[in-house]
C-alpha cells in the first residue's frame, strides 16, 4: 500500500469539478487501503508535499495549472512520482491550438482552424483578416479560448456580427483563441487507459443532448440533461476507426497513464475529427472516463488503482 497525495481544487475555473473528482478518488483510495493525503492546492502546496512525503501524487486537478504541466513540473522538481501524462504531453494537450497543430502535422484529422493571440488583433490588425477566415471556415464558426479545459467561453458564431462578441468572450479566458470549423454530427468521447501492452481505448461514450440543451454547456454538470450512451451505438467499422484515431492522437501528443479524446463524427460525410484531448478528464460521478471504464468491466476503485500503479516508479 502506498501513501498517496490527492491534489485537487486549486484556483482553476474548474475548481468545483476538481473537488468532486478528488473526493471520489480519495474515497476509492482509502477503501483500497492506501494512506491518503487530500490537498486543496494553494500557496502551501510545496510545503505540504514535503511534510506529507507521499510515495505518489494523484493529480485530480482540471484546467489551468493542474492540467497544463504546471503542477507536473513542480512534482518533477520535488521528485514525487505522479499520475497521468508527463509535463510535455500536458503542455501540448492543454493548449488546444498546439494540440491541433501536432495532430495536423501527424496527419490526424482535426477541424480546420485559425488561431490568434490578443496582440495579433491589437497590434497587427488581424481583425481585417476575419472576413477571409469566415469565408474559409463557413458559418457557424466555433470560437474557443486555447487553454480552457471545460466548455466555458466556447461560443457559436452564426453570422459575422457574432464573431467579435464571441472573440471578446473567449479572450476572457485566455490570451490566445481559436476559430474552428463547426463539425455537425455525433459527439463521441474515447477514453484511453494504459494497459500491459500499451494504451487501450475504452468503450466509446456518446453524449446525446436533450434537444433544448444542445448548446447549453451547463447540461453536462447535471444528471438527466444530457444522456450518455455507453457503448455508443456505432457501426463496428466506425467504432474501430474512432478508437484508432483516438489512440493516434494520444500517441502523437505523447500522453501516458490515461486521457480522454473528444471526437466528432460528421453527419454529412461520416468523417471523424479529433477536437481535443483532455489529459486529466473528470472523475466525478457523472464523468465519462469512469463510465467507459465501468463498461469495460473496470470498477472505479480498480481504475484508480491502475492509474496509481502506472505512476509508481516500478511501472514506468
Amino acid at each position, binding site marked *: 500500500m502506498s501513501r498517496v497525495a490527492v491534489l485537487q481544487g486549486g*484556483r482553476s*475555473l*474548474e*475548481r*468545483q*469539478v476538481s473537488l468532486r473528482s478528488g473526493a*471520489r478518488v480519495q*474515497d476509492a483510495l*482509502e*477503501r483500497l*487501503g492506501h494512506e491518503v493525503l487530500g490537498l486543496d492546492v494553494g500557496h502551501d502546496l510545496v510545503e505540504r508535499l514535503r511534510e506529507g512525503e507521499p510515495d505518489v501524487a494523484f493529480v485530480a486537478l482540471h484546467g489551468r495549472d493542474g492540467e497544463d504541466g504546471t503542477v507536473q513540473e513542480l512534482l518533477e522538481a520535488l521528485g514525487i512520482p505522479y499520475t497521468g501524462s508527463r509535463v510535455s504531453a500536458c503542455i501540448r494537450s492543454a493548449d488546444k491550438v498546439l494540440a491541433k497543430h501536432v495532430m495536423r502535422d501527424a496527419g490526424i484529422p482535426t477541424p480546420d482552424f485559425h488561431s490568434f493571440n490578443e496582440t495579433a488583433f*491589437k497590434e497587427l490588425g488581424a*481583425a481585417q483578416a476575419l472576413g477571409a477566415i469566415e469565408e474559409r471556415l463557413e458559418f457557424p464558426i*466555433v470560437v474557443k479560448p486555447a487553454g480552457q479545459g*471545460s*466548455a*466555458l*467561453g*466556447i*461560443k*457559436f458564431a*452564426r453570422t459575422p456580427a457574432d*464573431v*467579435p*462578441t464571441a*472573440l*471578446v468572450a*473567449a*479572450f*476572457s*479566458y485566455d490570451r490566445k483563441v481559436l476559430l474552428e470549423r463547426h463539425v455537425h454530427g455525433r*459527439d463521441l*468521447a474515447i477514453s484511453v487507459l494504459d494497459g500491459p501492452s500499451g494504451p487501450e481505448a475504452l468503450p466509446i461514450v456518446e*453524449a446525446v*443532448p436533450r434537444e433544448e440543451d444542445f*448548446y*447549453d*454547456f*451547463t*447540461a*453536462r*454538470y*447535471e*444528471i*438527466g440533461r*444530457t444522456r*450518455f450512451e455507453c457503448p455508443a451505438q456505432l457501426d463496428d467499422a466506425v467504432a474501430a476507426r474512432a478508437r484508432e484515431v483516438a489512440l493516434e492522437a494520444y500517441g502523437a501528443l505523447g500522453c501516458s497513464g490515461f486521457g*480522454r479524446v*473528444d471526437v466528432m463524427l460528421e453527419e454529412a460525410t461520416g468523417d471523424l475529427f479529433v477536437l481535443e484531448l483532455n489529459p486529466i*478528464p*473528470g472523475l*466525478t*460521478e*457523472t*464523468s*465519462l472516463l*469512469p463510465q467507459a471504464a*465501468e463498461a469495460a468491466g473496470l*470498477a*472505479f476503485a480498480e481504475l484508480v488503482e491502475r492509474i496509481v500503479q502506472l505512476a509508481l516508479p516500478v511501472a514506468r
Partner: protein
Amino acid sequence: MTRRETPGTTTRQLERYAGLFAGRTRGMRSSAMRDLMAITERPEIISLAGGLPDTSTFPPESYAALMQTVAAESCARALQYGPTEGLAVVRRCIQQVMAAEGMTIDSDDVLVTTGGQQVIDLLCKTLIDPGDVIVAEAPTYPGAVPAFSAYEADVVQIEVDRDGMRVDDLEQTLDRLEAEGRRPKFIYTIPNFQNPAGVTMSLPRRERVVRIARERELIVLEDNPYGLLRYEGERLPTLFELDGGDFVVYLGTFSKILSPGVRLGWTVAPRPILEKMNIGKQSADLCSSSMTQHFVAAYFDAGPWDKYLRSLIEIYQRRRDVMLDALAEHFPRESEWTHPHGGLFIWATLPGYINTTDLLARALQDNVAFVPGRAAFVDGRGGSSMRLNFSGVNEDEIREGIRRIGAVVSEQVSLYGTLTGAHPAPAQEPAPREADPDLAEVLQLPQRPERAKRARP
C-alpha cells in the same frame, strides 16, 4: 479496514436515483455559474459578489453579554422547542421594528420564520400549484428563483426602471395572462433598494400596485429586508402600510438590521394565509431556533435596538459613496449603473457585447468578483449586467475591486473596438458624469440565448 461504499458513486447508481426524483426537481439545478462563484470565496479574492452584511461591525462584548443574559435568564427555554409562530416576546420586537417603518400590527398576526427566505418558500407552499404564475421583477432576487422553481411556478418577469417595477407593464402582463386563462397567484416585489437593481419603487407606483392587487384580488409578497438601511431621501410607505394588510403579505428579517446568523425573519399575512403558512412551517421545521429568538429578545431588552442599525447605516453609506466614486473613476463611459438610496447593491450594465459571466472568469484572474446579471433573470436576459455589493467589504477593497473590474471592462471595450473597427474607447478617462440613475432603458436586454458548445466533464 471496513468501510461501507459511499452510496451513489457510480453513474448507473446515480441514474437509478435520478429515476426516483420528483418532477419538480427538474427546476433544481446546479450550474456552471455556481461553480464559478465557488472560486469567489477564496481568501485572495476581493468579492463584491456576496450579499453579506458586515457582521464584524457587531461588538463582540455585546454578543458575549447577550449570550450571558440568555444563559442566566432563559437557559432551559432557549434549549427547548418553541411555538411555531415564534416567541411572543420576539413578535413584540417585530412590532417595534415594523413601527419604525410606519406599520402598525397586532403581534398575533406575525409568524416568525427561519430567515426571510422561509417566507418565500412557505408562501409558495401555500399558494402555488404546478404551472401557476408568479409575477416577479426583472431583474429579481436570485435566491427567490430556485424557491419558485421548486414549486414548479411559471415565473413572469416585469421590467424595472429607476422607479421600480414598471406598473404599466405589470397591468399589460396581467391582462395578457388573464386572456390566456392563466392565474397569477402572487406578485413578488422588493420595493426598497431592490436586490439586485438597487432601485426603489416610487410612491405613485406603490399606490398603483396596491390598487391593482385589490382590484384583481391578487396577493403581493412585499420583500423588505433593506427598508431601514436608507442613506438618502425620504422614507416611503410600504405596500403593506398602504394596503392595510388585506392583499399584501409582508416579509421582514433581522438579517440586515442585526445578524443573518440568527436566521430569523417573519411574515405578516392575512389570517387564512398565515394559518396555512403556520401549518407549512410545522412540517418544515416545527419552529425557528429558540436559542436565537432568546438572543434577539435579549438584544431588544438591552437598549435601543436601532443603535447598531444607525452604525450600520453610517458604514454602508460611506461604502456606497466610495463605490459610486470608484465606478465614475474606473468604469468606461459605455457603462451605466444605478444610484441606490439604500440597501446593499449597485447594478451596473455594460455594452451588450460584453457577457458578464465570461467577464467574471477574466476578473477572477485579477482576484476580483461580482455576480453576473444573468442570475437575476429566468429567461437568459441580464447577460451584460452585474450586481456589485458594497456592504461586505471595506472601503479600500471597494476602491481596488472596482478599479480591477473597470480595467478588465475597459480592456474588453477596447478589444471589441479593435475587432469591429469602431473607435477604441479611451480606457482610463474618467466618466464625465455622476452615476447615471437612468436605468430604465438599460435593463431591457436582447434575449439572445447563450450558445456555448456542450462539452463533457
